[in-house]
């Protein structure tokens, strides 16, 4: 499925934010992630489902992905 990360399309099979964060190599701290404009705090990543068409905004120091 496709999701957008900072307005760029990303192909993923991750079913939740924790798995997606691993795919994107996101650091465990110093980061703000919003899924469809809702900021998801780190402990909630595993419980945050990711679906086709979701829009993610990631604010973090070292940009990649």
């Amino acid at each position: 499925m496709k999701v957008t990360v900072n307005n760029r399309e990303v192909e993923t099979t991750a079913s939740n934010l924790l798995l997606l964060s691993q795919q994107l190599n996101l650091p465990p701290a110093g980061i703000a992630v919003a899924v469809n404009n809702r900021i998801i705090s780190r402990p909630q990543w595993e419980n945050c489902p990711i679906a086709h068409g979701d829009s993610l905004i990631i604010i973090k120091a070292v940009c990649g992905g």
Partner: protein
Amino acid sequence: MVQFITHCTGRYSYVESARLALEGGCRWIQLRMKNSTPEEIYAAAKEVKSMCEKHHATFIIDDCVEIAKDIHPDGVHLGKLDMPIGKAREILGEKAIIGGTANTFEDVENLYRAGANYIGCGPFRYTTTKANLSPILGIEGYRQIISKMKENNIAIPVVAIGGITEHDIPNLMELGIDGIALSSSILNADNPVEEMKRIIKIAQSWKNL
């Protein structure tokens, strides 16, 4: 996403304003304390940092890079007259989130090239929160900045700031703005906690596709 910028009002101190925002569900706090002494900022920063940690919220300090070096927030926000991004990066390292203030596309481009991680872009309209204000952007100003960013392939999260109310959120999100920064509209509400909850709900209901 919603960023709350602390403000000191007749009713609330800077630290209290951050506490209200967190209680209302905001998970991104910028501690901004203009006209305060470094000692006051240091003390407040320590307190707000521990509050943010408790709520797993991102914590940004406005301007004070030296204080940030000691306190270790998630990052800093640098205004147009503050320390350049590159210098702050040298001091705080690769792991710090560094945001910068932009009023024009040229500002956005410069901040992006300097290695900023997000842009606080504004002011949207006139606000009493900030004293030395650049020209207001309005919806049209944001439209032009966002479209030039796309033309130039500049992908960096943009947060709109400056006198934004709930009615502006859909219009701004529609343009491709990634977030909004709020301060006085929350604190001037009868119940700031409920107001924050309401605003976050409105921002969430807009799926930015």
